[in-house]
Every structure is written in C-alpha cells, then in structure tokens.
C-alpha cells in the first residue's frame, strides 16, 4: 500500500485538521470529535446533518457551509460514524427549528443515525431523517436493504440546504429532500480498486481488461465484472439502467452529475459527459445544469458514476440557489 499519510489509524483525525486549516472561513471542528460544523453557525434555520464513513472526500465535510450542510460527521474510512458523534453534531447545530439527518442507505449508516436520532429525541430535539437510495445498480426489494445511496446524495445536500437556508420548516425541508430522493438516480463503474489505509490491500482486483459495473463507493464489488468498453459504451450502459428506473420524456428538465471516484482524470469524466450530453440531446431531454468532478469519491478508486436528477420548478430554483462551502461554490 502506497499512500501519502502518516499512520493509517490517524488519517481521519489528521484529514479533519487539514480541512479546518484550509478552510477556517467555512468549517470548524467540534473539540475532540470527528464533526465539522459551519464556522459561523446560522441561527433560526432548520439544521442539516449528514456524514458517513471517511474516504469519500470532499464528502461530507466539504459540503458544510452556507446553502448546504450545517454539520458533517466523519466515521472511520468506509465505516459509518457512531451515534454519539452524530448526536453531538445534532446538538451543536440545532437552532431550535429542528434537524434533518441526510443518510445514505447502508445498514451501518441507517442504524447509527437512527440511534443518534433516538438520543436526540430523548433530549427533546426534533429530528427527522431521509435516506438516500439513488443507486440503480442494486435491485430494490422490500425484503432486502434496498438500493444504496451514492453520489446523487449531493443533490439532496444542495437542494435541501437551499430550502433550509430560505427559511423552510423542518417538514418542508424534509419534503423537498424526499422529492429529490424520489427523482434522482445514479449508477457507477470502476476500472481500478482502492485500498482502505488500515486494511492495507486493495478491496478487489481487476484484470488488465476488466471493469466492474454497478460499483459502490466503498470498494464493495459491483453487480457485474466484464471486459472494459469504450467511454461511449460505458455511458450508454449506465444511462440505460438509469432511464429504466427514472422515466423521462422529451422536454423534461434534468441536472446531471458526472462524478469521479478519486483517480479518474477529469479528461475522462469530460469524455463521458460528451456522450451523456449527446444521448440526452438525442432524446430531447434538457440538461439544465451539469456538474463534473470528484464530488463523492472512494479513496483512489478509478471509475465514475452518472447521476441524473429530474427537475421541476421548485427543484430547479433551489439547485440554482447560491452555496458556499469548501467543495462547492455557486452564486
């Protein structure tokens, strides 16, 4: 394992300090905890708390700031944070109008956030939660854990964040978050693995000509391993699954995120985006806004995901609203 780190056990702690040193104008760290909150805590607004395992940087600390999250809780690498940390985050940012927890659908995240919510509840803090499950690679079924939450989560942060910033109530913020979740679909793929620092070896091994389709963001295997194809065929492949699940008609408006998983050159993401834009144009579906970059990564995994969000007027307006965080600035 080759990494630019000090000790594998210290990566999360040192990374959080490094983030605070870099962006003191946006984030500060709760003393002794793996929680970043806004430097200037807004009062009188619904607070948004998200988080998850580390290794997805800039998620989630990079999205703490005006117009997005109020706090982000960082677990060990690829391991959901613990309830006590989440609970401290909730307490720190609760301004009296309630707190929304934005959770990605993994058993670990759901259980830990749930326990934190119970703790907050016991203290009389009003907490609601939404669970993001945008990954169409995974079959949905009431008998299983359901679909995973991946990069589409960023649209939830952005839009629910804008709603909260504009003075929405907890119920309203939750409702718009649910609306995003109902309208966002993603799917990813990988061509090279990542290595959890404490594990010391790659989470999977691909042959020189193989790719993994339906890849998650924790180095979990995808749904299928197959020979690598051209960027255009990969984009078609991912979009096909997305379109199977998210019905879109000519004239519909969407936002698209081409997300790099950590080691994918931006060049390749743009080549993917070219195909995506052409496929959408061919179908007469409008892309109102495109984001390309490493928004939610998987350490140094090579690969990417496509997320598509179907917009209505409310979502469009909130997506376009200003935001100012370490990883996302828009005016």
């Amino acid at each position: 394992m080759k990494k630019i780190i000090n000790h594998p056990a210290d990566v999360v702690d040192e990374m959080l300090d490094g983030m605070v040193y870099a962006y003191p104008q946006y984030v500060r760290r709760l003393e002794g905890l793996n929680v970043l909150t806004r430097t200037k805590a807004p009062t009188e607004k619904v607070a948004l708390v998200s988080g998850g395992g580390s290794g997805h940087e800039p998620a989630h600390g990079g999205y703490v700031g005006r117009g997005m999250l109020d706090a982000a809780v960082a677990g060990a690498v690829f391991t959901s944070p613990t309830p006590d940390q989440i609970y401290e985050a909730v307490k720190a940012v609760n301004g009296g109008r309630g707190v929304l927890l934005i959770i990605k659908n993994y058993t670990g995240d759901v259980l830990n956030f749930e326990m934190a919510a119970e703790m907050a509840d016991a203290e009389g803090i009003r907490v609601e939660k939404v669970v993001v499950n945008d990954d169409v690679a995974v079959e949905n079924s009431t008998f299983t854990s359901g679909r995973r939450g991946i990069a589409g989560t960023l649209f939830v942060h952005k839009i629910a964040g804008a709603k909260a910033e504009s003075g929405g109530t907890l119920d309203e913020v939750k409702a718009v978050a649910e609306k995003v979740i109902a309208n966002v679909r993603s799917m990813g793929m990988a061509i090279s693995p990542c290595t959890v620092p404490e594990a010391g070896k790659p989470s999977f091994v691909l042959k020189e000509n193989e790719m993994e389709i339906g890849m998650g963001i924790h180095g979990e295997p995808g749904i299928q391993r197959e020979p690598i194809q051209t960027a255009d065929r990969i984009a078609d492949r991912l979009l096909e699954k997305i379109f199977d699940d998210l019905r879109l008609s000519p004239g519909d408006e969407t936002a698209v995120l081409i997300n790099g998983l950590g080691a994918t050159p931006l060049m390749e993401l743009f080549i993917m985006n070219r195909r995506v834009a052409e496929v959408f144009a061919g179908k007469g579906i409008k892309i109102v806004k495109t984001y390309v970059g490493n928004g939610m990564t998987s350490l140094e995994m090579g690969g990417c995901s496509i997320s598509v969000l179907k917009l209505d007027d409310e979502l469009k307006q909130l997506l376009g609203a200003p935001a100012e965080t370490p990883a996302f600035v828009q005016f």
Partner: protein
Amino acid sequence: MMKGSLKSAMEEIASAIKANKDYLTDLDREIGDADHGINMARGFDAVMAKLNSAEPADLSSGLRQVALTLISTVGGASGPLYGTAFLRAGKTVRQGDMLNPKLALSMFRAAVDGVEERGKAEEGDKTMVDALEPAYRAFEDTLKSGGDFPECLEAARDAAKKGVEYTKTIPAKKGRASYLGERSIGHQDPGATSVWIILNALLQYAQKIHKEQ
C-alpha cells in the same frame, strides 16, 4: 464462571477478535467493504481500555459500559448491532445478580432479540442472526437436558459454526452483501463469523474457570 469476571471474559473475546482481525476483514473484502475485523478490533480495544481504567461495579453496569463503548467506537452495521446485544444482555441482569446458566440463557435471548429488532434481519438473510439463533437454541436445549455452562456454550459455539457454514450457501438479503445478490453465494458472512469467534472465546473462558473451581 462464578469466580470469573466480566473483564477477564472480555479479555478473552478481545484477544480472539484481535487474532482474527485480518481474517474477518478478508471475509468482508469478498462481499462487503473490508472493514469488519478492523471495526471489531477497534471496538474491543476500546472496551479493554475502558474496563482497565475502572473495573465496573457489577455485571449489569459492566455490560452497559461494554455496550456503550462498542456503540461509540465500532461504527458500521456491526457497532449498533453488537452494542444493542450487550446493552440488552446487561438490562436482563439485576444489580447484584451473579451469573448462572439460566440467567445467561435469558441474557442470550435478550441479546438476540435486540440484534433482530435493530437490524430487522431474520434467519436466512446471511447475517449474524444466522449464527446467533441456532446458537441460542443449542444453548437452550443443552441447558434443558442438564448440561453445565461449558457444555451449553460448546453446543452454542458448534451451532454457530454450522450457521456460519450455512451462510455460504445463501444469498444475502440484509447488510452490504445484499447488494451483490446471487454473487454473494459461496461467501461466508463476516458478522456470523465474529459471533462464532466470540462464542468460542467465551467457551474457552468458561472452561478455564470451570477447571479452576
């Protein structure tokens, strides 16, 4: 186990988990995210640090401390699940209670119920429940037919092992491995495996105590 202490029992578990850290992580690499051994080792290291800093007053408060420490250090799916198991087991014990096989049986039941309530998994979902449920039944049966503590634990451990083997034959329906669907068949569930390792450690411990008596 009368002469035993929670601390020495947990020591036995902690060292078994440590010894199997890479093994559990490797199992999780196959069908999960390669951290189960790391998570468990971090948790039980913290438990030992906690118990070493101040020995708990009694079994009940000791188990509560173990539970809260696991909850606040393990993370992932296994943290809340094992945490809930120890929390519920602790709640079953009244202040001043001494451990005996009958109490252990109701602690065991409470723990398994806790895991199932939290995780909403049932047998056949390829989770730790597939080791816990058969282990509980074997413990119960052995106790009913007059077995002593080590015998009950031995039966439980062996049943857990069978449960672990069973997980290899089924697709996962809960937890991270469920995303793999049919591809998870043929792989052994890491959480069921850690249940078996813990029961084995408890058995080792009970046998030691038994001999000393």
